[in-house]
């Protein structure tokens, strides 16, 4: 029996009511009915008191901007006019790291952070400063309005989570997300001014205007057919990083390697007339940056020592002393213990995030990377499991404190404030055996006892994983955190070999992969680590950033342009050249769609290639380069193709299910049944099928939309389009169109080249773009109404349209070869009662296996009662700790926008599995 998803505006007839009267429904529940009462998640665990206190501190913390790093970076950069770019940048980075103020919070056993604040971040005006210049008057005005933070203002901090949504007291809001003390606003603007005309954004913009299709590129951006440029927003990320060299050699040892190479390469081209001479500068830059990192870690050690000396509490003295001892050790040397190794990788991770603007920097397979220390500590009796568990909880809290200050529109519109540090479990070892270990069980346990958005977890699934690990993962899913995501190891390896085989990847190396960011399959490599006289093969990232290149193309909006002869009717602007084709056959419609799609990819690829080229010339990462193979060995940084795998740029899509449903509806109603003409559909779309706009209604989910007075004239065509076959029901009429699209996408993407000369490939995740992209898209032939959010991911069905149960949805989703794409994404919402108890856990595991065994790449679960989400939307003050799975990431409910909240509520809720 069907249930309505939402309610319409009072006094106005809602879509669900209208459809119900015609015997047609948009189901939000499938496989039964949910209990009437609010149902809590079955598995709920608590962290240790220490981790709990530090997590509570996070809940009280505002997302804040500190200027220390950009100030010192800019100060040094300006002094070095004429220096070789990579060395100039390294000097600036060294100065910035050396001058960060170390803050140690009460109770911390793992220390470090991006800034002086607990949840701090900072702008990088050398990437982009335009936003601050555009709003400088507004910021100045806010800074002048002095006031004190009254108690009543302080109590409002819980609303919106840690987002500083508006100015208050002494805090100025930047873009409704970050807070900065008003006293520092003039310095922020001074910093921005220093980079006008010099930032990657500005210099890239100068040259991107020279591409022949630049007007199209600009139109694509303004119409939000493409979400954002990648070269100056998030130039790195969606990749796994690599900690091997410092873990093996210590930071001083890595510097020594660079020093040795300098004597070998200085003045030598090494047979490479283009890049050979650059090796000297890269090695020198590496030493400089490592010195900066050492100063930074050393400053934490000094702060710990200071606190030890200041404290009168013996316990605190001991804790600070231990902390200082371990930090002083890892400043130069290989870690001795699990705790020191964990501390070092956390600091390295933080340092990489400070070096460049990055989202989706994954730590990789941490349980396997740190296994040598864990194993030897346990054997020596130096470490108990409870202590290890607490350290892993503390690690989760620290990772959750990361914030990313990207260009405006990216943080909120795309990322939902998330930073996507994806930690992977499972997978295969170098020799092909199962790679999992006891430490990974503890990582899963910490994910339950200390539920936080970061690091999100992913399980690299294959048939040899032990049952206890799988059931532990299912139990973790039942906490409702949305992690671990389930990822098909075999599908990923097939993709990797196809994409990176030409660069030398073999079967063994393909096993070292990890997920970067949400769900981006990222290449890795093996390194032999020696500890205590034993040898271990550990995996780590070895590829360039992914999800760079063509960043999110709105497939439904391109189809809208096809229907209106290349025009964006919302803005009344011609985007694509008019085709002037009558579109009398489905094939003609499809060909026109393909033509526009390719024009869009071409223009965006060219423009982003230029932006990334400026980035690699002026803003190349030094630290991240030296961490990843094979830069340290070859002397080539990332921009000189020093990474082992470089064919990582891609084309990202959004709105797959809506595109497929729209094409299916057109094929059925216009071209086969001929029940409506294409012109009828156009007029109905322009009239929004007689409905109010989503903004007028105040909801972005389809079922909550309300009819305008007189809108009934569009009722029949709307009903027919909605009733047309939909993706997700094992219906070949829709599934063949999905297969056609996937075949085309995976083929056509490879026709375009990145700046490094490698072919692009498809990436099919939506992150949060399905909200803003839906907001600017008219109604669609699938019956979706104007302004409402698209379906999430790429394999998730549009909310309420998958009516035949999860196995029918799986059949639809696997009608194509997932290994032809970097990923696919399936989100499933399940009511907690459907997976309750041991039997429910088994059923959920079998459901997961069934999907992956059909060749799917990924599935993840929201195990939550939709009624809880509705209550949380109405009373956010009661739900500060509630987390949901959005699309490849988990986020606090109160920190995501309403459009995405509406979409998560509207997703089909499975009552039985």
């Amino acid at each position, binding site marked *: 029996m069907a249930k309505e998803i939402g309610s319409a505006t009072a006094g106005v007839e809602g879509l669900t009511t209208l459809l119900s009267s015609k015997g047609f429904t948009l189901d939000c529940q499938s496989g039964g009915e949910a209990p009437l009462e609010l149902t809590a998640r079955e598995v709920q665990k608590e962290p240790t008191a220490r981790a709990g206190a530090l997590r509570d501190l996070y809940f009280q913390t505002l997302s804040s901007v500190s200027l220390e790093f950009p100030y010192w970076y800019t100060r040094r950069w300006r002094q070095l006019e004429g220096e070789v770019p990579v060395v100039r940048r390294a000097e600036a980075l060294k100065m910035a790291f050396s001058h960060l103020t170390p803050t140690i919070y009460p109770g911390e056993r793992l220390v470090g952070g991006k800034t002086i604040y607990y949840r701090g971040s900072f702008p990088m005006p050398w990437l982009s400063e335009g936003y601050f210049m555009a709003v400088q008057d507004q910021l100045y005005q806010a800074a002048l309005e002095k006031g004190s933070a009254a108690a009543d203002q302080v109590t409002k901090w819980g609303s919106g989570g840690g987002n500083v949504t508006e100015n208050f*007291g*002494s*805090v100025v809001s930047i873009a409704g997300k970050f807070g900065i003390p008003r006293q520092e606003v003039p*310095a922020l603007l001074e910093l921005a001014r220093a980079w006008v005309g010099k930032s990657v954004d500005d210099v890239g913009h100068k040259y991107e205007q020279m591409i022949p299709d630049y007007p199209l590129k600009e139109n694509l951006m303004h119409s939000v057919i493409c979400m954002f440029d990648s070269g100056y927003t998030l130039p790195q990320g969606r990749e796994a990083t690599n900690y091997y060299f410092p873990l093996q050699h210590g930071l001083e040892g890595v510097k020594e390697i660079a020093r040795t190479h300098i004597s070998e390469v200085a003045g030598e081209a090494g047979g490479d007339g283009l890049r050979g001479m650059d090796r000297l500068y890269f090695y020198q830059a590496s030493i400089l940056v490592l010195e900066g990192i050492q100063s930074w870690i050393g400053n934490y050690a000094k702060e710990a020592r200071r606190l030890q000396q200041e404290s009168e509490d013996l316990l605190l003295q001991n804790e600070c002393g231990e902390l200082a001892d371990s930090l002083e050790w890892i400043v130069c040397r290989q870690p001795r213990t699990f705790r020191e190794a964990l501390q070092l990788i956390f600091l390295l991770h933080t340092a990489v995030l400070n070096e460049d603007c990055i989202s989706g920097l994954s730590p990789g397979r941490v349980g396997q990377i740190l296994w040598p220390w864990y194993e030897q500590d346990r054997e020596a009796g130096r470490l108990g499991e409870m202590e290890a568990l607490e350290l892993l909880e503390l690690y989760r809290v620290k990772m959750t404190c990361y914030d990313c200050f990207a260009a405006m529109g990216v943080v909120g519109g795309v990322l939902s404030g998330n930073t996507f540090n994806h930690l992977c479990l499972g997978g295969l070892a170098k020799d092909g055996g199962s790679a999992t270990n006891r430490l990974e069980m503890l990582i899963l346990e910490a994910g339950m006892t200390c539920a936080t958005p970061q690091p999100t977890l992913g399980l690299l699934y294959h048939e040899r994983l032990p049952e206890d690990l799988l059931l532990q993962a299912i139990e973790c899913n039942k906490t409702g955190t949305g992690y671990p995501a389930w990822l098909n190891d075999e599908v990923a390896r097939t993709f990797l070999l196809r994409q990176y085989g030409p660069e030398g990847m073999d079967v063994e190396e393909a096993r070292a992969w990890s997920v970067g960011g949400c769900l981006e399959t990222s290449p890795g490599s093996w390194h032999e680590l020696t500890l205590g006289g034993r040898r271990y093969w550990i995996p780590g990232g070895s590829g360039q950033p992914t999800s760079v290149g063509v960043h999110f193309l709105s497939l439904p909006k391109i189809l809208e342009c096809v229907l209106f002869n290349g025009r964006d009717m919302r803005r009344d602007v011609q985007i694509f050249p008019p085709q002037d084709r009558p579109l009398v056959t489905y094939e003609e419609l499809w060909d026109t769609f393909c033509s526009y799609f390719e024009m869009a990819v071409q223009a965006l690829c060219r423009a982003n290639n230029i932006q990334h080229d400026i980035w690699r010339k002026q803003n190349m990462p030094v630290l991240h380069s030296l961490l990843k193979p094979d830069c340290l060995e070859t002397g080539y940084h990332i921009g000189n193709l020093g990474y082992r795998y470089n064919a990582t740029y891609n084309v990202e899509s959004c709105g797959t299910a809506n595109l497929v449903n729209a094409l299916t509806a057109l094929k059925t109603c216009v071209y086969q049944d001929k029940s409506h003409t294409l012109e009828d559909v156009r007029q109905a779309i322009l009239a929004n099928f007689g409905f109010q706009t989503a903004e007028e209604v105040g909801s972005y989910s389809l079922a909550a939309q309300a009819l305008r007075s007189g809108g009934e004239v569009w009722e029949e065509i709307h009903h027919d389009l909605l009733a047309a076959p939909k993706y997700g029901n094992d219906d070949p009429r829709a599934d063949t169109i999905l297969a056609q699209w996937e075949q085309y996408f995976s083929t056509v993407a490879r026709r375009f080249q990145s700046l490094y000369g490698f072919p692009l490939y498809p990436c099919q995740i939506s992150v949060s773009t399905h909200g803003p992209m839906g907001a600017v898209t008219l109604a669609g032939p699938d019956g979706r109404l104007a302004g409402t959010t698209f379906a999430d991911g790429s394999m998730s069905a549009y909310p309420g349209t998958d009516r035949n149960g999860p196995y029918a949805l799986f059949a639809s989703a696997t009608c194509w070869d997932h290994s032809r794409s970097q990923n696919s994404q399936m989100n499933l919402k399940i009511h907690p009662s459907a997976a309750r108890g041991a039997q429910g856990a088994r059923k959920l595991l079998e459901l997961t296996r069934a999907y992956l065994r059909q060749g799917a790449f990924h599935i993840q679960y929201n195990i939550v009662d939709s009624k809880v989400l509705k209550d949380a939307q109405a009373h956010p003050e009661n739900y500060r700790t509630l987390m949901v799975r959005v699309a490849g990431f988990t986020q606090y409910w109160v920190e995501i926008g309403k459009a995405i909240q509406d979409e998560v509520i509207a997703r089909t809720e499975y009552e039985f599995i």
Partner: protein
Amino acid sequence: MENQHSDCRRYVPVDAAKGICRRTGGMVNLEDPPCRDLIQLPKCKYCAGFLSGEQEELGTCTAEADHPWTYPELVATTCSWFLPRESEGKTENPALEQNVGLSPVKESLS
């Protein structure tokens, strides 16, 4: 410029609005007046090399040869040029070697 909680060495900055007082363990607002036990935190505004600008929130660092601009609230515990205003004659901030900013407010404020 009046002292505030964030000028104290015992203030642990949590975010742009508040921090933890190590003395009491409680949360305090950044801009609120500190208690009598304030221990001055090295900041540019307390440095002998700091020259105020026309705009209150900006200034110049005269300690470095090229006189770069700076801002008074910049924490200077890691700055090698920091020199407390009273301690003329020193050329380096002992911050990098020892604890700094631990002098009580009555000794460091003019």
